[in-house]
Structures are given as C-alpha cells and as structure tokens.
C-alpha cells in the first residue's frame, strides 16, 4: 500500500469506521479525455463479464475491465479475511456501479491493515455488529500448484466446439443428453454438466457432477426420472451411466442421502434439498485420455451462439478456462458467469423465447445469511430448464476459473434471456426478483465427505 493511502487510512480511522477510503491506485472511473484512448483489450475470459457490466451499469469497456481488476483483488482480500480474521470479518459487497468495495468487520482497522498488502483502490470499511458464521471449506479442492508455484492455464483453443457437441476432453458446461423413461415413451432430457469430480487416492474413476433432478425425481407424479441405470450421452457418445445399486457402476449419488435408496436418496426437488447427482463416467479413456495430461478441469466459455447449424449452434469460444479451485460463497456484487445448454424447442429442455445455449453473466445478489449459511449462491440472471446442473464460476483473466456451484432452479422462464419472471419460490433473497440459485460445490463435496466419500474437483 502506498504511503499516501496509509496516511488517508489513519485520517479515516480518526473520523470513524464508516469512512470511504480513496487510494492512489484506483479502480474508479478513469475515463480518458481522448475517446480513442478508451480502446482496451478485454482478456478472453472477461468478455462475458465485461459485457454484462457495460450493459448493466452503462460503463465503458475500460471501466468494466477496471471493475474486474478490482474484483480480482477483492476476492483475494475476501479469502485473506475469511481465513485470517474469521472471528471479526463479516463479509464484503462489491459495488460494481461505483467501483467501491464495502468491507464489514467488527474491527475495521484490522481489516484495513489486511488490505495493505493488496493494491486496493477504493475500499469502504463498515463496522459490523458480529462476525459472519464461518462457512466450512473443503480442504482438498485446491489444485496443487506446479513447481513454480503457479497454476497452469491452458492455451486458448480456437477449434470449433459447441456446447451441444463438444469434443474431448470433456468440459464443464456442455450438454448432457439423458435417457428417460425408456420403458415408456423413451424421452430424452437435456441438462448441463457442472464439473467433473474424482476421489483422490481411489480408483481412477471420474464422475459427472450435475443437478440431481436431471436424473431422479421421486416427486414426479408421472414417475419420470426414476430409472436407475439410465445412460447419459454427449455428442452421441456415452459419457455416464447411473449406478444400479449393486456396485456395477460405482458410486452414484443424488444428494440428501436419506432413506434406503441405494443411489443415495430421493430428490424432492425443493430448493432446500441438496440437488446434485454424481454419475460415473463411461468411456473414460476416450473422454479424458489414458494419461493425466489431457487438460482436465476445462471449461469452454461460449458466447454469441447465433448461427444455428444442424449439429446445434455454432458458437464463438470466448476462452477456454482451467478450473483451479472453488469459491464457496463469493461476496454480493461479484460478477460471475454460468453456462447452460437449454435451447428453445429442443427435447427435454423446455426453454422458450429463442433461448440459446452458452454463457450468461451477472452478479451475486445474496449475502451469507440469505443463502442457508453459504450452501446456496443466488444470482440476478435468468436460466431455463436444460441449464440445470450447469457450472457457476468466476472467470479470471489468466484463463483460470474458480468453481462456485451448479444450477438448481431459478425464476420461471417466460421468453428469452431477460424475460424471466420474478420468482415467488426459493430462498428469501431470490423472492420477488429475477434470480437463479445454485448449490455450492464446496457444500456438495462436504455432503459427500460426511458420507465417507472424499471427492474433489478433477483439475489436473
């Protein structure tokens, strides 16, 4: 932290804990006087988030990039305070409109001191009555750094790869075509792959992590989604098959773990119920290769899926991100993205209004108290049936992504990206708003850990 900023901090402390702290390094609006100087290169992973910020807050591209830089530093500070000052830290909120980070702590001065190590611009430290209840974090989900201590990022892939029919290796955010009711009308259901997980130290078996209601829903009066050995496909190639309970396909969980269902449990499809499935990967050699260097933990972020082709949608790949870690509950205001494969008029997805597969970006709108103590994350953007199970993540400019959660439900889809209705269901922070909510990856992994299954994200 620069000396001038420290001086200002001291001055601010003298007048109270609610001071706004401007700094020499600022993320606030710094529009150049020459309009042509506004030209700025947007890192590939930030095209979606910057697009959201410029539209939502009427920012210039430069300002939006600066906000994302601010977010990167804010998330570092958030981690630092959560781990180092858990007794006093009460959370933060990112105001992307004005470029201010609000930090709440019972001891603002200590939080302020922690920020010294970061190149912060505008911070607002607020006095809190009490610290937030710590959210458990899965200790094994962090990826091991390489020998240089840096997480490796993949090269950008320019090859065509649509979310409905992508190639190897298997990536987060692609379509899962699931068999349903093959003893009846034999319908197909479309959902989205959240993440790939595995058990370290166990057999080299990988699992698809997606929404539980995509595969099993005991509350469905028609008895759909109830077969136990249904297969799942991507691009016409089998990618997963549910367990039958006799161990023939390994572990196949559906959250909740209640009852005597050999698959884990029923899924009542309410927002309070852990809504996830872990499906053993089939054709593993094909999807991930016979060696471990096939770029595991990838997520291809798609934008502009406008040109429909026979095989789905010809989408621009904004970037290919390497998933490196999890972010349990990002602060409210954090710009995040989700990828889904719902599309209008396609079997099993039920989306309307020209809905297309691809990446959507928005922001986190809830605080920890409103999210079942960090088990859920709530965002302000619309989603549609078929997006379920899809990954919610924070895109970093170094071509990495932090996994946050998988989609479980959201506002009723009416017509198109922006026209979902305000929900009257779900968590309190979502009611009356256009919102979607997600089970956090950390909570899912902890839920599995409580049942003796030590999963972690498949990252490298």
């Amino acid at each position, binding site marked *: 932290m620069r000396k001038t900023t420290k001086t200002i901090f001291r001055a601010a402390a003298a007048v109270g804990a609610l001071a706004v702290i401007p700094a020499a390094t600022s993320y606030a609006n710094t529009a150049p006087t020459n309009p042509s100087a506004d030209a700025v290169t947007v890192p590939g992973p930030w095209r979606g988030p910057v697009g959201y910020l410029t539209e939502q807050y009427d920012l210039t591209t430069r300002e939006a990039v600066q906000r994302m830089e601010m977010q990167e530093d804010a998330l570092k500070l958030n981690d630092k305070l959560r781990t180092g000052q858990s007794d006093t830290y009460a959370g933060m909120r990112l105001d992307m409109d004005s470029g201010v980070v609000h930090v709440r702590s019972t001891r603002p001065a200590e939080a302020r001191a922690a920020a010294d190590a970061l190149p912060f611009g505008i911070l607002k430290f607020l006095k809190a009555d009490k610290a937030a209840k710590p959210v458990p974090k899965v200790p094994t989900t962090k990826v091991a750094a390489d020998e240089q201590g840096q997480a490796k990022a*993949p*090269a950008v*892939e*320019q*090859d065509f790869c*649509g979310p*409905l*029919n992508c*190639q*190897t*290796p298997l990536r987060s955010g692609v*379509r899962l*075509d699931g068999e349903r009711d093959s003893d009846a009308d*034999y319908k*197909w259901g479309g959902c989205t792959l959240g993440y790939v997980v595995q058990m370290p130290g166990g057999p080299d078996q990988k699992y698809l992590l997606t929404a539980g209601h995509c595969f099993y829903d005991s509350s469905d009066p028609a008895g759909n989604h109830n077969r136990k050995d249904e*297969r799942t*496909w*991507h*691009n*016409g*190639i*089998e990618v997963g098959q549910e367990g039958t309970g006799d161990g023939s396909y390994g572990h196949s969980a559906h959250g909740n773990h209640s009852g005597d269902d050999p698959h884990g449990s029923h899924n009542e499809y309410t927002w309070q119920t852990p809504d996830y499935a872990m499906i053993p990967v089939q*054709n593993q*050699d*094909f999807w991930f*290769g*016979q060696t471990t260097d*096939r*770029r595991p933990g*990838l997520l291809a972020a798609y934008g502009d899926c406008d040109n429909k082709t*026979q*095989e*789905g949608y010809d989408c621009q790949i904004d970037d290919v991100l390497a998933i490196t870690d999890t972010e349990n509950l990002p602060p409210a205001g954090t710009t995040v993205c989700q990828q889904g494969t719902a599309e209008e008029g*396609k*079997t099993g997805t039920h989306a309307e209004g020209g809905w297309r597969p691809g990446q959507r970006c928005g922001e986190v709108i809830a605080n920890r108290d409103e999210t079942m103590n960090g088990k859920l994350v709530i965002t302000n953007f619309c989603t549609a049936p078929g997006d379920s199970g899809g990954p919610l993540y924070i895109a970093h400019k170094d071509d990495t992504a932090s996994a946050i959660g998988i989609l479980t439900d959201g506002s009723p889809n009416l017509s198109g990206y922006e026209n979902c209705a305000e929900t009257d269901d779900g968590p309190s922070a979502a009611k009356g708003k256009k919102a979607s909510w997600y089970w956090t990856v950390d909570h899912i992994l902890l839920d599995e850990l409580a049942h003796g299954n030590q999963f972690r994200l498949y990252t490298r």
Partner: protein
Amino acid sequence: MTRNKRLAGALFLLGVLTLTGFTAHAANGDTTDTSTGDPAGAKRVQAAEPYKVIVGSGDRSDCPDGYLCLWTRPDYKDLGVAIYGSERNWEFNMPQQMRDIIIGNHDSVYNNGYGEATTSKDAVRLFRGNYYSDGWLTLCRLDGIRNLAGGRTDTEPGRGFTDAFHSNEWFDPKYC
C-alpha cells in the same frame, strides 16, 4: 446383404488379398525402411497403403500403426478396415470391397497412429457426412471407442455415430 454374408465375403477377400501380398507389411505395421542400402542411414518412409482389410480379435492393437481402424462389431471385433491419411469421401474413394465392409456398418473405432508421419497431425476427426460435414467426433491418438451404439435416437444434436461415418481428417490437436 446380411451381416453374415458380408462377413463371409470379406473373409474370402482378406484371404485373397493376403495371398497376393496386398497386406505385405501389415503384420507389424512398420511403415519405415531401415535397410543398410541407404548410404545416409536415414529412415525412408514407405508409401503407406491407403486402406487395409483387418480382422479384429477384440484387441485394438490389431489396428496397424499409423492407421485409423473401424470394425463391424463392438469391442474391436470381426472384419474391419484400416484407413491411412485423410479421406474426404469414403464412398467415392475407398475400394469397392472395403466400402462393402465398413460403410454403414461400423460399431467400434480406434486411432492407432499418425495420419501424416512427419507431422503432429495425430488426432483424427470422423465425420458423418462426405467432405467433412454433418458433425464429427474426435479421436486422439491411441483413443478408441469400444461401442458406437446409441446416442439420441431423435433428430436433435447428440445423435449417435453408429454406422455413420463417411469421411475422416487428421489434424494437430490442442488437447491430446
């Protein structure tokens, strides 16, 4: 033609081809010549046969080095065809006997090599249509699919590749 008749005919063809030396260096798949007749001692790449008839025993290593192989049955079994290099139109360019074996009749597939031995193009895309069209899947080197059956049975994206391929293209992969 029924599958059995096709199998019998193709086995006869395989015998004839073997007797006539058509598959002269298919046994070990070596496509290089290291004879001492080369004064420089350098390896000289022989021109590979563009297609070979193969018989699968269930071991995908039956596929000769450097080739893409397809079998008429799952698990790399029964008759098959090995293809060297990119081929944009199997129906037009593949010899009649091999077309009869494999076009519209393949259940397993394996990539055992380098499409172009002097380059890094060792992954192959298999297309449903001629001229590299109508959707594809990618096989990295040494990757195979034991059973191509299934996929969506409707007309949506995600339909399967059983019996579907009509062209193949080798390329330099990003993630293999």
